């Protein structure tokens, strides 16, 4: 495979002056800005397209990341499953008592919530390190850099698959009825995975340049955990709190993937929020990555 030719091409604009140009008078300038922004998005998409074609490389690197972590342990990668089982059972028992809920209701809720939540936060935290961890490869291989984002993304999805094993087990143990709504899990997970990808692309690029960002992001995620209904239910909140919760996009992202597991159809508002996130996020991420993708190697 030969990507060198491709990596060597600069996005078709001169050093982003056009991007930085003031939106002054005259539609000509505005036109120029629009054109160069489109150029950035196009170059980022081309990069991603080339990276997707190199699937063998990112599947290999991603698989190997997981294999390396659990090599020589008896359970192997099923330690992932074991860890989440302990977490969910422990929290389920304690918090069902605190919240005065029946464990039959609460434990499946927490299990589904954590499986999705770990996918979301895993993608965000690992996304920050995606280029930093791939420095050795980035300086040698001539594949487009988004290969390394795909590597991290793939790893997150494989980890998710191992976590998700507990879902059918929990549903069976507590005899949770499974209806047609369950099928909505598929689009729900797609929403999470695709939203996660733009976050990784954006954060990976920014974190390569600003080394404080990973720390900021990880404390942000901690706060996010407390304001997102993972452990509690939003209907336990007073009306004013619920209104705020409706505005938390991560609550919507969690809901579109989790609620179908428990037989609830997510609301139209929730779907609208995650779709908006998808469009807005991908645009920003492609612009930033398109602008800086040729600089990332120098920052590492």
């Amino acid at each position: 495979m030969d990507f060198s030719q491709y990596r060597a091409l600069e996005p078709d604009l001169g050093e982003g002056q056009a991007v930085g140009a003031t939106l002054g008078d005259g539609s000509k300038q505005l036109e120029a800005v629009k054109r160069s922004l489109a150029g950035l998005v196009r170059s980022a998409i081309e990069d991603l397209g080339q990276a997707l074609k190199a699937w063998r490389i990112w599947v290999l690197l991603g698989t190997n990341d997981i294999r390396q972590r659990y090599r020589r342990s008896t359970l192997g990668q099923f330690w992932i499953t074991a860890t989440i089982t302990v977490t969910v059972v422990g929290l389920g028992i304690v918090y069902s008592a605190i919240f005065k809920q029946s464990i039959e209701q609460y434990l499946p809720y927490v299990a589904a919530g954590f499986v999705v939540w770990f996918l979301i936060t895993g993608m965000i935290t690992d996304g920050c390190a995606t280029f930093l961890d791939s420095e050795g490869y980035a300086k040698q291989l001539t594949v487009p850099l988004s290969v390394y984002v795909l590597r991290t993304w793939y790893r997150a999805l494989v980890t998710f698959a191992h976590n998700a094993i507990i879902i059918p087990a929990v549903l069976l143990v507590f005899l949770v009825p499974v209806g047609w709504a369950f099928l909505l899990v598929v689009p729900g997970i797609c929403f999470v995975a695709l939203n996660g990808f733009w976050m990784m692309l954006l954060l990976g690029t920014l974190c390569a340049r600003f080394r404080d960002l990973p720390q900021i992001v990880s404390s942000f995620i901690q706060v996010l955990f407390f304001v997102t209904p993972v452990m509690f239910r939003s209907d336990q909140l007073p009306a004013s709190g619920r209104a705020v919760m409706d505005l938390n996009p991560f609550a919507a992202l969690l809901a579109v993937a989790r609620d179908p597991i428990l037989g609830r159809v997510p609301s139209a508002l929730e779907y609208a929020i995650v779709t908006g996130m998808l469009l807005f996020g991908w645009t920003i991420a492609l612009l930033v990555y398109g602008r800086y993708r040729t600089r990332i190697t120098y920052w590492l």
Partner: protein
Amino acid sequence: MAYINLHRASVQFPIYNARSRSLKSTIARHAVGATIGSRPNKDVVVVNALNNITLTLQPGDRVGIIGHNGAGKTTLLRVLSGTYVPTSGNAEVIGVVSALTDLQMGMDPEASGHENIMMRAILLGMTYQQARALTPEVEQFSELGEYLDLPVRTYSTGMMLRLAFAVTTSIQPDILIMDELIAVGDISFIEKATQRIKTLIAKANIFVLASHDENTLKRFCNRAIWLNRGELAADGPLDTVVAAYNKASRQGVEEMGPLPATTPTQPAHSV
């Protein structure tokens, strides 16, 4: 068809220290604007690793790159292989490139020799089928035999290098790029390895070698590029350029650049 064309290519490394890398200082700078106490680029040291390089490499070119430590040789190799995109100017690299710089990239010490062969081959752009087809050849060349079933961490350094060398050199690239000539292993293996490298060089359309060793350059190259502090000091027939370089070095005309551009890698196993 292999072809490399650099047009006024420059590489400027921004060296960010912790302060300028932090988001806080960037935000503060923009918030305060250009008023008292905000000297925008105070913390950013910019190293001009390459300056305005224009050159064309065509099939048949066997190019030696010479210059003092910190002259920009490694940076130029990375631009030629396509991993660095010049910060200004253009670089066009056409053809399958193989850069034999870090042989051990992506080696997993916990994985067996066989697994490492597969991994390495995939990283070099092969399909699974091609990678599997490669195994017997690597097995034979590396002479590792049953060791290939053991995890690589049980290997000696020499064995590990033999494995890496055998896999990496099993692909014939259009453009072959090397930072110092590599040769690994004990005496009998070195001979074999040198033979392999020679064939690889002979079959490559374009060969680029950064080296400090005049004899090696004379053996393999027909053209030389002399880099001095990131600038193209001379480009021409090997003998002429090397003679000029030696003369200049003796006279001490050259000085070190303001800062070494990259950490020069000189593998211990180079000849």
